[in-house]
């Protein structure tokens, strides 16, 4: 993939972080449940690599906070840390690990989401209760509240990547049903 295309896909993913959040905010609790920011970030990391994913995470979260007011300023550091770590880990695993396509994708998704969420929880804990045992309450609370979003990501992201590969818009990583049919 050329540098220009990577830059444009990253730009589109940043814009999607903002506009997807806008689209879903009409539904109550959509930010916490659907994780619209993470959708764009993970798709960007999976298609363009960890660096572009991290840029998408940082810019997407900051622009969404500026334009949508979500995530709120209180949640911003934790969400920012979670998104950047998730993008870096998912992108690196997809680029380096060589398992079967879906195993690689799910390993990347699970690792990225879990570690990102743990880092987000730690940041949240450090922000709201840096010393007391309450730190673990905050960190644990953040982690538990992110679980529904993780389930939705695990269903949504592979489907999205497959649709994009089928449309010929991202390089095929054997996720494309067309390629499997042609291969058979």
């Amino acid at each position: 993939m050329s540098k220009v295309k990577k830059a444009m896909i990253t730009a589109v993913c940043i814009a999607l972080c903002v506009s997807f959040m806008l689209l879903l905010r009409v539904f109550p609790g959509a930010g916490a449940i659907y994780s619209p920011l993470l959708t764009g970030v993970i798709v960007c990391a999976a298609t363009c690599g960890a660096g572009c994913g991290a840029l998408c995470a940082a810019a997407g979260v900051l622009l969404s906070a500026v334009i949508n007011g979500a995530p709120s300023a209180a949640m911003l550091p934790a969400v920012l840390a979670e998104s950047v770590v998730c993008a870096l880990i998912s992108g690196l695993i997809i680029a380096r690990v060589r398992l079967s396509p879906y195993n690689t994708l799910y390993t990347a998704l699970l690792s990225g989401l879990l570690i990102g969420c743990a880092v987000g929880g730690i940041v949240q804990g450090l922000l709201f209760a840096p010393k007391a045992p309450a730190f673990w309450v905050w960190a644990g609370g953040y982690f538990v509240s992110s679980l529904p979003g993780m389930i939705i990501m695990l269903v949504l992201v592979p489907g999205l990547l497959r649709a994009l590969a089928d449309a010929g818009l991202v390089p095929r990583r054997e996720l494309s049903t067309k390629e499997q049919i042609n291969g058979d």
Partner: protein
Amino acid sequence: MTRLPTGMYQPGYSEIHGVNPAVKIVCFVLLALGVAAANSLPGAVAAVTVTVAVIYLSQLEIAVVFAPILRFWGLGALVLLVNTCFSPYGKAFFEWWIFAPSLSGLLYALGVLLRVVLVILLGAVLVLTTSPINLTYGMERLLSPLGRVGVPVSDIALTLSAAIQFIPALYAEGETLRKAQTARGARFTTRNYLEKARSLMPLAVSVFVGAFRRADELSRSMEARGWACDCADFTPRAKGELTLADCSALLVSAALFALEVIIL
């Protein structure tokens, strides 16, 4: 016609509005770090004084500045409750199961809450007095020295500029698709998470495929015109000299940071 959000920016002509965006971002970071480090009573008084002065100088409506705090009240109450009940310091009022609320815990919780509220207010002033496009230019300018150590700053600048241009188009397209999916019976408000994910899938696929198609077409046309990302002079924007207001803002922010971190 679809109304697009213009962000939280409030146009104005105050001293704070006139400060260079890059300087404003640096000042915000310094002030936020200073406020976060305010652990003593004099430190808290200094942090509150500077925050009030910044809000006054911004000439913004108080209700607008405090709107993020009103949205924060639930989380704020939780911060207060959790820190009070789980503090290991001081003598507890009573003990029940794992909860041991104490006076020192309450004071500690109030300190944490004050710092969080002040940082939120400073952040609100930053985004209320700076348009998103200016914030992006500010970030680009702050990142520009990293170009000397191999960070692709021109690529990042191109990406951020394109992203800002894409937002209204993608939102308008997505809004049409969301309404169409809702009319076809998509259930976004169901309590079942798998069903939520399934309802979201058609909307997300349509939005993402449409957006990626735009990116593909744009990158093809840019490459056909000989565009390459490595051109270092992508953004020939006016750099802008630092004014007296910029220097004063930097000085005050650095002074508060030094006061909180080194002295108090």
